[in-house]
């Protein structure tokens, strides 16, 4: 069974990665997860300087999901290189550095520092951060800015460059095309969906920043629709993210057209979800007579009649 997937010259041993911000820097879980059975780890977002993150409360559970406002708390790129990367190099998996920044210059500077390091196999760019120079609006909701970030970063690295898109826009395909045109190697779809929850007794928001990012099974249908829109707009690979808990969830993303998937919130419940999802996909393909997990990708049948009974199965 072929499970691997290649981006540029970087081969991932399988198509299941763990999402940024849900797996730390990989060093919290060695007792709980066989990391060598994951396709790769997207690191916690890295910025130039350490970030404290937002005040508490940062998380709350909502219907089949969770709302968070961690605020990109991270140790900063220098400390990552000095203290975390040496241990990560020993892991038998791919390490993709996720970068979050508050200016185009900062994105470039952080990427350049990491690009020089062995053991960093590629980059995933979080464009859902506030753009400090433009009054704090997210970079990711301005196609011209996403385009510019992709162009500037592409010039600075020959490693795989993945842009992680926000679903909080009218047409995600517009952003996908902009990234493709500027040389991105792949797109991660989706980041969290803006959401809110209220404590009715205190009449206060349930998280300190009032609104936050919704993740977990609640967003899976949204994510599938965004992946569907994206794969129909671009030729570069799409990495599906959003509410994957089981291998069946992951299979849905592959069938819709994602080339790889990421496990996010489910890691908080079972840190080894990525391993069980990868195993499940492999078994499912074997049972269906497929010799490559990739044979599932973009096999969605939209021309078949769907009966009411089928749609409930």
């Amino acid at each position, binding site marked *: 069974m072929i499970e691997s997937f290649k981006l540029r010259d970087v081969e991932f041993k399988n198509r299941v990665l763990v999402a940024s911000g*849900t797996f730390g820097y990989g060093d919290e879980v060695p*007792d709980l997860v066989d990391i060598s059975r994951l396709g790769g780890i997207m690191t916690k977002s890295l910025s130039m300087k350490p970030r404290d*993150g937002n*005040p508490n409360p940062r998380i709350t559970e909502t219907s089949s999901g969770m709302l968070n406002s961690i605020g990109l708390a991270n140790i900063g790129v220098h400390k990552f290189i000095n203290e975390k990367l040496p241990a990560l190099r020993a892991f038998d998996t791919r390490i993709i550095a996720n970068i979050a920044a508050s200016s185009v210059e900062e994105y470039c500077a952080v990427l350049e520092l990491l690009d020089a390091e062995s053991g960093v196999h590629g980059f995933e760019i979080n464009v859902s951060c506030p753009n400090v120079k433009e009054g704090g609006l997210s970079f990711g909701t301005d196609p011209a800015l996403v385009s510019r970030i992709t162009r500037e970063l592409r010039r600075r690295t020959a490693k795989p460059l993945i842009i992680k898109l926000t679903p909080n826009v009218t047409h995600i395909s517009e952003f996908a095309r902009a990234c493709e045109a500027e040389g991105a190697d792949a797109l991660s779809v989706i980041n969290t969906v803006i959401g809110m929850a209220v404590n009715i007794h205190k009449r206060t928001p349930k998280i300190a920043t009032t609104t936050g990012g919704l993740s977990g099974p609640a967003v899976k249908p949204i994510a599938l629709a965004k992946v569907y829109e994206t794969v129909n707009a671009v030729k570069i690979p799409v990495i599906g993210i959003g509410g994957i808990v089981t291998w069946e969830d992951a299979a849905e993303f592959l069938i819709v057209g994602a080339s790889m998937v990421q496990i996010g919130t489910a*890691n*908080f419940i079972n*840190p080894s979800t990525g391993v069980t999802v990868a195993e499940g996909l492999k078994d499912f393909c074997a049972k269906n007579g497929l010799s490559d997990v990739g044979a599932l990708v973009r096999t969605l049948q939209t021309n078949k009649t769907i009966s009411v009974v089928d749609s409930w199965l």
Partner: protein
Amino acid sequence: MKQELVPIHSFQQLTPEILELTFISDHLAATAQPGQFINIRVDNSFPLLRRPFSIFNIEGNKVSIIFNVIGTGTKVLARKRTGDTIDVLGPCGNHFLSFVDDSFDTALFIGGGIGVAPFPFLTSRYPAGKKVLTYVGGRQKDLIVQKGLRDPRIATDDGSLGFSGTVLDLIKRDLAASPVSRPRFFVCGPTRMMKAVAEYAKEIGASCYASLECDMACGIGLCQGCNIEMAAGDKKYRLVCKDGTIFETQSVKLP
């Protein structure tokens, strides 16, 4: 630390409000320390996230927690039956015994309501030669758990059991009547109570360690959801799940 499916051994109603759930785990029995917690997936699909519980006691390979039914997680847990399994991750967090040393003589264990949870286990593992006074407070008698504690002194807000007033009022009265040498406070309970105890400890020059509660998702430092603001130092926040749950009270800003 390990994630395991464990069978429920028994339930016991400790008070009309508080249940004790006992399950079997050789792993936790062998590795857990007093003050540590476990993060429980109470059911396969709902609620989504795990729920943290202090380890109430360990006898042989029987591990127990206590809870009152207040939210979605505890509602589901209360409906479980002997023989059902629950998904347990642990042991998590730091522990009380790492703060037990020669710099103090008398420990005061102070539990407020369900916050009494870590003290029976601490009582059973506490160094035999060291002196301990145990205090339990609550709004009313149905919130007072005494199981596993040694000669607990009780205070209730409504006077339905023991001293009428707050547990801190009772402690102040006792210490005025019979002072103890070099006390250290170990406290777990509602934030308001922990804050009051911490302030009093500071006044009398005693050290105070509090086991904090916070909404968390993972319990092991992955989600960074359970931050607590520090009073000083280079780090603005630390994580309740991983750096705590036990903190020296002057080092943190209690919410």
